[in-house]
């Protein structure tokens, strides 16, 4: 059963999504003023800093045949079907290098559903402007529209309900391989993406302009995290290293320190030694401005993990970085010195997700061994272990905004909200597909202000209504959003990515997603009362998400309506963007 498999990593790249997608340039106008990225994907020049173009990371034929022999997977990873929990540790070494680069060490063979889906995708992808026919044909009602909306709750004080209504806004192109993670900076101004092509990129969240390409990792980048000040970015890679980057300069953060110190004329002998080694290493790997692990202090990359670094999170103060790795340990790093502070013997399987709670005193980690552990940051002790009866592999984890709950994404296509104090599941969110990849999601929050209610409300009520929701990617390439309390799906955006959608992140009214197709999509929440017709909220022709909240509409129809809308937008992204920029 795939549920008990470790996550097959987000990076299983299906070829057709990348190279056989002839995007016509009209849709590329969506990104204004970003020269290389807006052009066709095939002739991309991702970075001036990039190493030799013959880099193995880019060799496209790897993408072309991601899974030549599915049986091979089975043999390799599923030798012990029943006791899959006690997997052999040697699996990682068994992986060939090229595979690890592509992060395609999926253990679960693609299950039949997704395969058929991606098949249909590839077919439709072969003709331009493909998405709409493909999507409109998929009218099957999705499984979760079962819960009836709570009318009273939504129509409190007779106002329009706060519902997420994210519409596609920009398309960011540039990565040459699947994107494993994308995150919006805490100040909401930047977007960072980590990709299997070995680079991370920084984008402007409002314009979508590509700002920096961070080159330095020797293998695919699996994870990234923003420091709370939005000035530092941490990336973790399959080369076992974690790198810290200065957002402004795009260069390694600790390398800056190195230069400062030498100019300060600090230690003579020691510094010379470091500088020499740094130079030697630079020459060796051909990366300019490369830091090096300076003995005790660890400049340059943070080295210490014995296997792929798979998840990262910063503490709320930004002084501690927590990392989870395929070596089954969780490390806590002193960010300033780049020093390993504490290593937690956390799990018996790859650590697939880590997170910090809002006051920084707790760390949560999850693993494909099915356990979620809560740790005390200061003592390094395990305070709680959460495990579901069915013991599904957990692929991602995060704390709720108030730090009282833990949201766990598990590979039985469920997202569970745990109360870690009582150790019980409070909510289970279903309706997306997540069986083989470690996909990510987050909490979102909308307030009246976001919803354009400012004019309508007396000042003291601004921001009084808040609606938290949960967003997750789905393996069919969708984005699904749930209401936290009622567990009902409140928005579903279909076919956002071709292949798997790996990661969704939300900052207020901005949502960003990334997927296997190497694309990043930016969404903006559009208040529903933007539409003049929507003022009288009763059934009208527009019929978007709210239609469901009217007098008991058929949820299926509502979803289709919503979908049609999304498609409509997808058909003319260029226009939409222009419109919004006015």
């Amino acid at each position, binding site marked *: 059963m795939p549920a008990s498999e470790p996550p097959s990593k987000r990076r299983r790249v299906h070829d057709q999504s990348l190279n056989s997608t002839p995007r016509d340039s009209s849709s590329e106008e969506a990104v204004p003023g970003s020269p290389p990225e807006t052009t066709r994907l095939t002739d991309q020049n991702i970075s001036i800093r990039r190493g030799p173009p013959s880099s193995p990371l880019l060799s496209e034929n790897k993408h072309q045949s991601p899974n030549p022999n599915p049986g091979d997977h089975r043999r390799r990873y599923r030798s012990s079907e029943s006791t899959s929990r006690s997997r052999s540790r040697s699996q990682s070494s068994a992986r060939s290098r090229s595979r690890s680069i592509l992060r395609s060490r999926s253990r679960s063979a693609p299950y039949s559903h997704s395969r058929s889906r991606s098949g249909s995708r590839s077919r439709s992808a072969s003709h331009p402007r493909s998405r709409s026919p493909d999507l409109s044909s998929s009218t099957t009602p999705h499984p979760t529209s079962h819960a009836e909306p709570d009318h009273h709750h939504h129509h409190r004080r007779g106002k329009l309900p706060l519902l997420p209504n994210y519409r596609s806004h920009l398309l960011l192109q540039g990565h040459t391989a699947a994107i494993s993670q994308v995150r919006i900076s805490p100040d909401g101004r930047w977007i960072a993406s980590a990709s299997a092509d070995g680079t991370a990129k920084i984008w402007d969240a409002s314009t979508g302009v590509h700002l920096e390409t961070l080159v330095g990792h020797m293998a695919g980048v699996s994870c990234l995290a923003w420091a709370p000040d939005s000035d530092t970015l941490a990336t973790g890679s399959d080369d076992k290293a974690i790198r810290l980057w200065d957002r402004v300069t795009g260069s390694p953060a*600790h390398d800056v320190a190195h230069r400062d*110190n030498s100019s300060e004329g600090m230690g003579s002998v*020691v510094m010379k030694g470091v500088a020499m080694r740094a130079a030697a290493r630079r020459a060796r790997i051909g990366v300019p401005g490369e830091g090096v692990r300076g003995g005790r202090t660890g400049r340059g990359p943070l080295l210490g993990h014995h296997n792929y670094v798979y998840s990262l999170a910063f503490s709320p103060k930004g002084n501690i970085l927590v990392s989870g790795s395929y070596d089954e340990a969780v490390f806590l790093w002193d960010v*300033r010195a780049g020093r390993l*502070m504490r290593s937690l013997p956390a799990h018996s399987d790859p650590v697939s997700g880590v997170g910090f709670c809002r006051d920084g005193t707790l760390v949560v980690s999850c693993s494909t061994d099915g356990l979620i552990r809560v740790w005390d940051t200061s003592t390094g002790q*395990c305070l709680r272990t959460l495990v579901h009866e069915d013991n599904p592999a957990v692929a991602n984890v995060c704390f709720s905004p108030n730090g009282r*709950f833990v949201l766990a994404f598990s590979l039985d296509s469920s997202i569970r909200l745990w109360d870690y104090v009582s150790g019980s599941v409070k909510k289970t969110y279903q309706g997306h597909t997540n069986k083989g990849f470690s996909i990510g999601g987050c909490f979102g929050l909308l307030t009246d202000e976001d919803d354009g209610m400012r004019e309508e409300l007396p000042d003291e009520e601004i921001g009084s209504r808040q609606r*938290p929701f949960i967003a997750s990617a789905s393996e069919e390439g969708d984005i699904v959003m749930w209401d936290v309390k009622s567990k009902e799906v409140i928005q579903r955006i279909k076919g956002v990515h071709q292949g798997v959608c790996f990661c969704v992140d939300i900052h207020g009214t901005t949502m960003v997603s990334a997927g296997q197709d190497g694309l990043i999509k930016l969404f903006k929440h559009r208040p529903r009362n933007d539409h003049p017709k929507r003022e009288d909220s009763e059934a009208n022709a527009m019929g978007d998400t709210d239609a469901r909240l009217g007098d008991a509409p058929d949820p299926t129809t509502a979803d289709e309506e919503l979908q049609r809308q999304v498609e409509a937008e997808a058909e003319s992204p260029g226009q939409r963007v222009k419109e919004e920029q006015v």
Partner: protein
Amino acid sequence: MNLLLSDDYLLQDYPENITNTIRSGHSTCVRFNRRGDFLASGRVDGTVVIWDLETMGVARKLRGHSKNITSLSWSRCGRYLLSACQGWKAILWDLQDGKRLREVRFRAPVYGAELHPWNHLEFAAALFEDQPMLIDIADPADVRYILPSVQKRPNTETDANLREKQAKEDAKHMTTAIVYTATGDHLLAGTTKGRLNILDARTREIIYSEKIASGIITTLRLTESGKELLVNAQDRIIRTFIVPNLSAVDLDPDTIQIPLEHKFQDVVNRLSWNHVAFSSTGEYVAASTYNNHELYIWERGHGSLVRMLEGPKEEQGVIEWHPHRALLAACGLETGRINIWSVTSPQRWSALAPDFVEVEENVEYIEKEDEFDIHPHEEIQKRRLDQEDEDVDVLTVADGGGLGSDVGAFRMPILFNLGESDSEEEFVNVGLGTLRRKSPGDQDEGDMTGEEKGLGKKTSGAGRGRGRRK
């Protein structure tokens, strides 16, 4: 948030053993900030180092003094730090950018300078062989007020000789320690003659004075609430006093009473005390001993000795108790290391395996009626999902301690250019593969290294030998 999960309240609330030793140069004084996440340490070479207690790493280094740092004082918000040194100056640092906000020069070495608890642009300083000062640095040009050390005598004395004699005596009467009360309206000052003065910070007059000790008062400390006063004097006795509410509207200076609560001393060994500190709540009193390795901890309720902390075989100087944890930091006099005592809670093994429970003794297991009933998987699943009808609130922050929740509080920037992590600075790389243990004097100014040994004692036992130092 971790308090929700831990049963640390069962643990004792005073430190037990050394948990960390950190070192950056030769530290002579330390001070926690109000939130307790940073520790400032002042070094012999005049550098001030800010430690992050979460990582036990250096967060900032402030260079501006060139002589031994004698005192440190944090502002309430944690953004500003006042450091005073033997080099006749005090610097107010802005930790946002690490620059000096103000520098104030004196005409004597500074014993100690303390910031006003609410206004970081005002501080009081006790000076060596000079009268204490109140300095207002709100304006670009600082305003200095000289504070008295001796109460004004009623001008009844007619004998000119006697008056002259008194004046001479008064001129020798110095203030050695000065602190603000919790409100900042008053100052408490200890003098060379063992007197405790209460000054009104506005009128800058002594409103109360009493001889409380027979020796020089070296340290004055208040609890967070400002209701208890801890006094260390050279007569080998540590005293605690109850401070009345000096900010009461109907305060009559003539009726002020500072009742003595406890006297702590070691009558057997006749120990004298280097430095003293209150615990976070004032429940305990800790002291470092002169010419001895141990730290003593007394309980204030009963006035009994509860613990003698063993540490490295080294005399400890300045000690500080963490503002809300059972954690003590002390500076070793010989090595200049900062030793940290704390409690280590044992790992609860049941936390690692949720299906196990730790029991004291055997429990007879009683099987539940339906415990081994077999239900179809779907049914269980459905039942489970149906049970999830609870209301969950993922937004509201239920904060118990109030710590870490203050929005908009100062956040120390994360620096990457701190150079070598100082906690392991003890070894120097002298050649390929050869390490040499760093001697404590290495980072000092050339002229400081010689007096290394005596220096530690001087800084800790504040008054002792001060007269001879210069």
